[in-house]
């Protein structure tokens, strides 16, 4: 399973990537695989102010619904409309075309509390044992 080095991760299986003034958010390959076929995605409204770890989006498979939590606090700047139209994009390319939304972070300190790729891998290993 792929976990790009340059990303930061959360214990709730989101990834986040800082790009200029905004941070792009998606779900990890592990989350995508656990969810199996994603059938519906509900994204936040642009302009919504969110707190770190607050539920901001929902991803559904046929028989389950999962909350997506904001990895950092801030304002939602953009959402990926393309995935609401075809949610399978998240299954196909969760780090690329399957990104979910972009946040303008309000507290850069919060990044330090996110997981590195090693820490995330360790967490996954701990979960399966």
């Amino acid at each position: 399973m792929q976990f790009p080095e340059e990303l930061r991760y959360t214990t709730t299986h989101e990834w986040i990537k800082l790009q200029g003034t905004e941070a792009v958010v998606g779900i990890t390959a592990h989350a995508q695989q656990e969810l199996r076929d994603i059938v519906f995605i509900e994204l936040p409204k642009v302009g919504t102010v969110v707190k770190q770890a607050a539920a901001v989006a929902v991803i559904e498979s046929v028989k389950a619904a999962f909350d997506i939590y904001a990895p950092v606090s801030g304002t939602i700047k953009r959402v990926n409309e393309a995935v609401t139209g075809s949610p399978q994009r998240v299954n196909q390319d969760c780090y690329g075309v399957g990104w979910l939304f972009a946040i303008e972070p309000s507290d850069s300190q919060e990044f330090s509390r996110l997981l590195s790729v090693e820490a995330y891998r360790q967490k996954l290993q701990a979960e399966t044992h």
Partner: protein
Amino acid sequence: MTEPLIFERSVSGRRGYRLSPSDVPTCSITQLLPQDQRRTEVLPLPELSELDVVRHFTRISQLNFSVDTHCYPLGSCTMKYNPKLNDRVAAMPAFAWLHPFQPADQLQGILRLLYELEQLLCAITGMSAFTLQPAAGAQGELTGLKIIAAYHRRKRRRRSIILIPDSAHGTNPASAALAGFQVVQLKSGMDGLIDTQELRARLNSNVAALMLTNPNTLGLFERQIKSICALMHERDALVYMDGANMNALLGIARPGELGVDLLQLNLHKTFSTPHGGGGPGAGPVGVTRSLERFLPLPRVRRVGKRWVWTEHSEASIGRVHGFYGNIGVLIRAYIYIRTLGREGLSRAGCHAVVNANYLKKKLQDIFPVAFPQACMHEFVLSLKSLKAQGLTAWDVAKRLLDYGFYAPTVYFPLIVDEALMIEPTETESKETLDELAEALRKIACEAKEDPQLVSRAPHRMAVGRLDEVKAAREPDLRWNPASVPTAVAH
């Protein structure tokens, strides 16, 4: 073999039912009904002959498994035989054609029946009073939770938490949320029962009630129920029992004597009324004497030799049904109880428990039982070992259809990995249980030898395994004249 949709059989101008011609002078619609109140577009309903309709609904009925045609061991649903006699009585014109606003002197028979049903349910459960109004188990839960809220409000306090074990049916937390409560989940103990340590840890002065199911969804009896109730009552919190599994307790134990304050019964489970492919059910709620005044209105009362409705009680939570409840279902349940009587009800409970334990014993070598202790009316297997073959409980459920058995409940309760929940009920014979065990044994072999046979099941139904992902991604919830039918199976 599948059948076209009724709309695809429509022929313009065809008629399927002849109404009596009008015998009153025609009146001018244009004068009596303003233009802006009239339907202007043609009503787009299909047009068929009576025979078209009869063939269509007879043919598609044959695509169903049902209790009348197949063993239906669906856990937590109590798919016992639905006696035909009950349907016959409910359809008698003297019951079927009563209007809710007729004067009471024209309704003495039905009012007496409802009154007696309440008494019988009290005798069976040990509760003091019942409302028959809730239309199904979940509406019964909502009614119970509103009563719990009213009880605390009466004591001039607001308590916001309902404790619910993680093994509970999904309606429990959903009903609690709908009633305005916050749900706190209790993690079950290693034995599948309520962990009293966990309960103590979660119990505080903001807890309004505990909602438990007994026997629980694993088919296990809560042995500590009395002390659990006592613990709740010490804090003046109430104990609500989801009575969906009451079938197992018939003649064995009475919730009212165990310390339960209120419960709902699912008459379409324990009392054999037909499920109708999804409903109707009935979810009467029983309470202790001290909660009686909170019951919904109206309530049926006996005054001398007459039965009447009473509309007043200032403490009542109000009305939950448009009229008096699902009377047609209540009549069936009443007839069932009167048919079985004391001996029959006890025998039903006893045979339900024996059937479940027998089947469990026969299956436990094939698939591990989630909890090994003796069960009541149902038990849960865990099929996680099949993951090695890339198979799931869902695959086994589908394959079982090929063997002529409806599938047990799958993936519930949530606390068991790859759960298969089986409830045979008392009306299945030993021979049928032996056949069911044999079918599961064969499927377990198939899983090892030919996993694809199982993963692609069912093979003998009208349709193969359906694409649920497509159904959810591209919701197609109604026929449209424009929609081109996909290939029709044969």
